[in-house]
């Protein structure tokens, strides 16, 4: 293999591995695309790279620029890595109740953390970022929840990679989050074969995270509505923290050390496999388990981990 010019060139082209040993139905294969193999450690490297390169092309980002973004962790970490390499300064509005490793990684890459109240969750962090961006028009706000480059990264990257490696795909199952992965890769896959079903997995919501003051603080990303998400998706399931943790553990049986949101996606894939007669499901493993070691997810008593999960944002 030739040497890569930059670590950022390692983003994308992630491997797909067969994890059907965990499928409850012998006629349903389950394949997992390992996004934790990206250099920044998560699927968010893709969106971060596209959003930054687009802003460089249209002149919004220049040497020494300051960026503001809200993130529950992974997008912030991905942006911070690229900003460090390219010489930008990143400020991340981060809910206080994310795992310690997320905070540590942001600091590794030199990002500045602006804490937001844990009870407001990701939605609250995003509202604060919007306010700060308005107060500081000189800062560049890429806004992952509405930036089309986010979905484009998956339309041009994740989707074609899946189609190349697994053209027999019948179902694409991924987490909702910003909706970038589902909108981009989902649309690409449906364009190749209209019969491909796109299923969303709602991130496991802890009690603290649904502790919003008003229901209208609920938020649907602009990216989702701008891409006709309600039409594109065929199904959406929610997975509870306990199941998410159980399947995060089960993934280790096939050699996959994954983050907890990937356990949620795997739990949904297993449900799907039970419902279907046959098929080939492709799921996304969003990140590796490294950032969640402090939660005790693999080793502590399941009841304890579940109780703790109610106060932590881990997607």
């Amino acid at each position, binding site marked *: 293999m030739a040497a890569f010019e930059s670590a950022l060139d390692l983003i994308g082209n992630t491997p797909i591995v067969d994890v059907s040993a965990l499928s409850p139905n012998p006629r349903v294969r389950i394949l997992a695309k390992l996004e934790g193999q990206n250099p920044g450690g998560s699927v968010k490297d893709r969106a971060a790279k596209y959003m930054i390169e687009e802003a460089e092309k249209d002149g919004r980002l220049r040497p020494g620029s300051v960026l503001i973004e809200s993130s529950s962790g*992974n997008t912030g970490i991905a942006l911070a890595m690229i900003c460090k390499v390219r010489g930008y300064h990143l400020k991340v509005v981060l809910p206080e109740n994310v795992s310690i490793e997320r905070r540590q990684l942001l600091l590794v890459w030199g990002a500045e953390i602006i804490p937001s109240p844990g009870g407001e969750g*990701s939605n609250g962090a995003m509202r604060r970022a919007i306010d700060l961006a308005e107060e500081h028009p000189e800062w560049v706000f890429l806004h992952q929840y509405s930036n089309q480059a986010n979905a484009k990264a998956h339309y041009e990257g994740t989707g074609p990679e899946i189609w190349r490696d697994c053209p027999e795909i019948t179902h694409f199952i991924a987490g909702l989050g910003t909706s970038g992965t589902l909108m981009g890769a989902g649309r690409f896959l449906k364009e190749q074969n209209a019969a491909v079903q796109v299923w969303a997995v709602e991130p496991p919501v802890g009690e603290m995270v*649904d*502790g919003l003051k008003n*229901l209208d603080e609920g938020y649907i990303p602009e990216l989702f509505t701008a891409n006709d998400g309600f039409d594109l998706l065929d199904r959406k399931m929610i*997975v509870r923290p306990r199941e998410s943790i159980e399947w995060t553990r089960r993934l280790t049986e096939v050699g996959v050390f994954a983050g907890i949101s990937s356990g949620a996606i795997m739990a949904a894939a297993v449900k799907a496999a039970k419902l279907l007669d046959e098929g080939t499901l492709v799921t996304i493993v969003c990140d590796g388990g490294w950032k969640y070691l402090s939660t005790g997810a693999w080793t502590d008593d399941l009841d304890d981990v579940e109780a703790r999960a109610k106060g932590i944002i881990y997607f």
Partner: protein
Amino acid sequence: MPAVRLPTVLRTHAGGAAVVEAQGETVADVLAWLEVTYPGMASQLLAPGGAAHRFVNVYVDDDDVRYLDGLATKVGEGAEVSILPAVAGG
């Protein structure tokens, strides 16, 4: 009877209960029952015209009803209906 899991923000209407036993054969029936039993609760969930607000997700047995039959989605005897605000991740 279907069980309804309430989001934190709606629990004050139900005396702080996280789960209530409801009645009804469809999601619409269950929401109507909630509104009669706990006045002011379900009206927050519906947009003008009667559909669920876009920032609210209603699930029957962990499946979002928008991708099933919407408010006409059947709710079985032992089913669980969950109401959750839409939350962004990333």
